[in-house]
């Protein structure tokens, strides 16, 4: 059985078609880097897998079933949002709120549930960390904790939406390495969306590149190539490899790098963000 399978799926937001007739399959236990310009539909795709957005056409399956909200086989780390600076709430209370968070009643946990949360925190080495105020943590520490949260209930698929955003290179590496070790250890599939490709090199099994309503899934060598990316971007793209890093260039201009200078890009959907160039933004160098 596949973890995620799309068969001629079309995804739209309002009248804007984000993905047109895309077909691909992701296997259990695979680490997939989801890349593409802002507005190419990375978040939209994740939302469709979560059952928050119905495909306009085609069929989408998650472990052989139609997506449904609250699917326990999926762990999800949404793109980061604001945290109230005054809030002294401990990390553990913050993430514990998500455990059966939709149930009516008091937010109390049984001893067994607390034990389960502690064990999950151990997976990411955050048991101690979790007792500090969430708002006082660094970006990297928060991502570690939120990764543990996504793992609660032993999902078989992790959806991580831009977990590297606004982290420095050191913390980016730490988050990627942690995700990689969890993927191997627990044998779960990972969809890891990112602005830049380079931090993910070495960790990912295959790349899912989105652009121009299309999707290309394959190995880095297959997908990150001039012809494939030119098709997705709808303009001439050169791929330059240098010292084990990959740069995606439009003419003399590094499209990924320029795109990603704007750290305030929160959503990647909607065609709104067109800075300077032709709205090209992939997995940056």
């Amino acid at each position, binding site marked *: 059985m596949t973890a995620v399978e799309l068969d001629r799926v079309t995804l739209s937001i309002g009248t804007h078609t984000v993905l047109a007739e895309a077909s691909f399959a992701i296997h259990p236990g695979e680490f997939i880097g989801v890349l593409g310009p802002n507005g190419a539909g990375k978040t939209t795709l994740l939302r469709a897998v979560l059952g928050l957005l119905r495909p306009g056409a085609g069929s989408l399956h998650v472990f052989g079933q139609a997506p449904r909200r*609250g699917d326990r086989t999926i762990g999800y780390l949404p793109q980061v*949002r604001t945290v109230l600076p*005054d809030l002294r*709430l401990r990390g553990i*209370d913050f993430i514990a*709120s998500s455990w059966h*968070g*939709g149930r*009516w009643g008091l937010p109390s946990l049984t001893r067994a549930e607390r034990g389960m949360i502690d064990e999950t925190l151990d997976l990411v080495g955050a048991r101690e960390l979790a007792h500090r105020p969430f708002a006082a943590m*660094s970006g990297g520490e928060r991502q570690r904790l939120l990764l543990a949260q996504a793992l609660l209930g032993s999902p078989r698929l992790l959806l991580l939406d831009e977990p590297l955003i606004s982290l420095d290179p050191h913390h980016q590496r730490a988050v990627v390495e942690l995700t990689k070790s969890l993927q191997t250890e627990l044998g779960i599939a990972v969809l890891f969306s990112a602005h830049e490709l380079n931090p993910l090199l070495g960790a990912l099994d295959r790349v899912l590149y989105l652009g121009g309503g299309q999707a290309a899934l394959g190995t880095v060598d297959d997908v990150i190539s001039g012809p494939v990316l030119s098709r997705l971007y709808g303009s001439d793209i050169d791929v330059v490899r240098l010292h084990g890093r990959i740069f995606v260039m439009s003419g003399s201009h590094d499209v990924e790098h320029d795109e990603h200078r704007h750290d305030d890009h929160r959503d990647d959907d909607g065609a709104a963000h067109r800075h300077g160039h032709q709205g090209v933004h992939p997995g940056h160098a």
Partner: protein
Amino acid sequence: MTARRIGTAIKGCIPAMLDYDFMRNAFAAATVVALVAGMVGYFLVLRGQTFAGHALAHVGFTGATGAVLLGIAPLWGMVLMTVAAGLGMGLMGERLAQRDVAIGLVLALSLGFGLLFLHFFTAFATQATALLFGNVLAVDVGTVWTLLGLGGVSLAALAVVSRPLLFASLQPELAEAKGVSLRLHGVLFLAIVALATAECAQIVGVLLVFTLMVGPAAAAQRLTGGVGKGVALSATLALFEAWGGIALAYVTDWPASFWITVLSAAIYLLATLPRAAWARGATPAG
């Protein structure tokens, strides 16, 4: 020290204070309202909706004065108006949340209507002050029972929604993905806030609802790291402030609402101090 003298005076006065019916009623009403305000207020502050609480109180003023004009008890007019407004605000949701100007104008308009109703009912000046600033010493036994009933409903409703409400407040994106309706919980919560506001206004008046709903909760959130402890501390602080305010009013003959605002502000200030000092002492690392 003045503070010590007042403290000794209070101690000496407690048995005497409770000899009076109106004092017993005041303490009973304050107890119910403080517990409700402290607990509901915790979530109000957590969700960053304190302005909504303030707005609902103003709308309540229109309800109360309108009710008097129609010959109904002001409390029920207030309950009706605040709950209706709370549901309305909840249904408008995000669209309303960012509109300070719109909310501000509705607030002013509510007070304006309240004023008009008072104008039609000219013999009503004392009660106007009571509505605006509260008069806990004038609460009768019947009102205490009504408050107890309303308070029970508010807290029972809060207990039922607290789990999904906490999740939706802390992590809306994830909660939505997990199938929790943000809108449903937003609406239910504002209805609870509306009820709590109407109760709170009986003690401190519509203009000072902030002092019991927001002050203790904000202080508690700065002092505690857990949700349960935070809610308990918020309720305890609100109780202390309400009781303290009434006791000080008995001793000084100044309005209880005044003392409650003083205690609320003082406690919030104290709660922020250690954190500010800590932040100054610590050097920002990595």
